[in-house]
């Protein structure tokens, strides 16, 4: 097993841990700005997390340890995934051949615990949300894995750090129709995993239409803070996955590289998500699987184009 370490590798993890909630703040600000409102301050997600951390959790008597373990395992899985996620050409803290499979399954582990914690409450609404989440993620997981396999094939490296080091070599020489397909597929997975608009509406008030929100209804206090922080981290690292493909930063100066990467990874996904949420409504639940199968088809096509 090859593991390499360099002093700058700490920066992707540190920036993810500290800047992830800011992403939500920027998205909400963009949405408010586009619809002509003033919007909450950018730091609002931090205030919310701080408020939740000071509260105490309330547990229903019907729940077991699974319900309490859910938020912890979810956050732990995402933090671990953040360790193996590089930032452009800055390698990740830990990297080894095949770590992209671990990455996909860390996301799946977090999701699995969210689902069984939701089922543990015995509430029918939560069961419904859990069933939808399981269905949609069963369709989005192959799309993500196949897309990453296509990238691995393209770049000739099977660790995330290696892949993104080749991709962000300072030019778009590697761009091919297949990589465009990979980008679209990963973007759909990004929207699904983060429960954003064409798939799920994070601001909905009706339990019947919720997917992710309904599963965490019973969590409160620090548990909810963990869940919200985990969601922000998930969005940050999946955003890295996307940005690494399209942003070939390579200035030669390390601190400049890092600053550009951080600015782009804050603004890129935030602007994309903000624009989408401003301009379109969510899809009908029956149409969502079609979107996810389409993402899968994009990945398969990309892989086929790369395998020739």
């Amino acid at each position, binding site marked *: 097993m090859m593991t390499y370490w360099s002093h700058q590798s700490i920066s992707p993890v540190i920036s993810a841990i500290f800047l992830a909630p800011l992403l939500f703040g920027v998205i909400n600000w963009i949405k408010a700005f586009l619809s002509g409102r003033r919007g909450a301050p950018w730091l609002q997600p931090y205030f919310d997390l701080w408020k939740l951390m000071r509260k105490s959790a309330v547990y229903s008597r019907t729940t077991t340890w699974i319900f309490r373990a859910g938020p912890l395992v979810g956050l732990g899985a995402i933090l671990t995934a953040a360790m193996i996620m590089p930032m452009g050409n800055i390698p990740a803290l830990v990297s080894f051949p095949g770590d992209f499979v671990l990455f996909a399954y860390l996301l799946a582990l977090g999701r699995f615990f969210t689902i069984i914690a939701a089922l543990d409450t015995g509430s029918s609404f939560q069961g419904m949300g859990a069933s939808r989440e399981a269905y949609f993620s069963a369709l989005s997981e192959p799309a993500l894995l196949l897309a990453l396999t296509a990238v691995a094939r393209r770049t000739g490296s099977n660790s995330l750090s290696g892949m993104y080091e080749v991709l962000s070599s300072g030019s778009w020489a590697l761009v*091919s129709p*297949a990589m465009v397909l990979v980008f679209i597929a990963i973007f759909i997975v990004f929207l699904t995993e983060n429960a954003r608009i064409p798939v799920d509406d994070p601001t909905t008030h009706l339990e019947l239409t919720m997917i992710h929100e309904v599963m965490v209804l019973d969590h409160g206090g620090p548990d909810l803070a963990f869940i919200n922080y985990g969601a922000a981290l998930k969005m940050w690292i999946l955003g890295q996955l996307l940005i690494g493909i399209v942003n070939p930063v390579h200035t030669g100066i390390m601190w400049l590289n890092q600053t550009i990467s951080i600015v782009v990874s804050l603004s890129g996904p935030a602007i994309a998500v903000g624009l989408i949420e401003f301009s379109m409504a969510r899809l009908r639940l029956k149409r969502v*699987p079609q979107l996810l*199968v*389409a993402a*899968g*088809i994009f990945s*398969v*096509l990309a892989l086929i*184009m790369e395998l020739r």
Partner: protein
Amino acid sequence: MNNWIDLLIILLILSNFVMLGSSRLAVCIRTLAIQGILLGILPLMIDRQDLVLHTTLVSIGALIIKGIVFPWLLFKVLRRIGIRREIEPFVGYVPSLFIGLAGLIVSLYIGSKLDFPAPESVADVIPLSLFSILAGLFLLTTRKKALSMVMGYLVLENGIYAFGSVVLNKVPVIVELGVLLDALVAVFIMGIATYHINREFDHIDVNRLDNLKG
């Protein structure tokens, strides 16, 4: 630039998936128009080094007939019969997409086994055309509306045309143009037939035509 042929092939494959997964007939007709235009460009891309008059002629003919005349005819029928979408095909849309994926893999396998005297750069057109033929057959057999069946037939025809475009230099121009005209007449007649079925029975659900048997 091989990338451009790749891009065309990817777009054509995706347009087939749109045909398989979309319930709105207007979307299907527009996709068919795009497919026709892309197919018209395809032979020009393949033979860019030695662009002969014959290839250009057939390509322009295909582009006009497949990209403009067919969609125009189909939209005319669509307006006359006043239906918007295919309701309840025999196989649902998500399963259709999965079957389409299976069909794509099968056609890639057959394409790789087929020992066909084609230049290296166009080797990918053969799986594409096989996939179009399979997708067209699938649409023909699983959709209930007569108009969707016409579109299935056109996807099938597009597949055959894509196959022909690989060997275009070897097929006499008169044969190619004859096939195009045949397809045109077929769509024309099917459009009229669909209109008459609709006027006679107030629907174009082919499944219910079975009831007519004495």
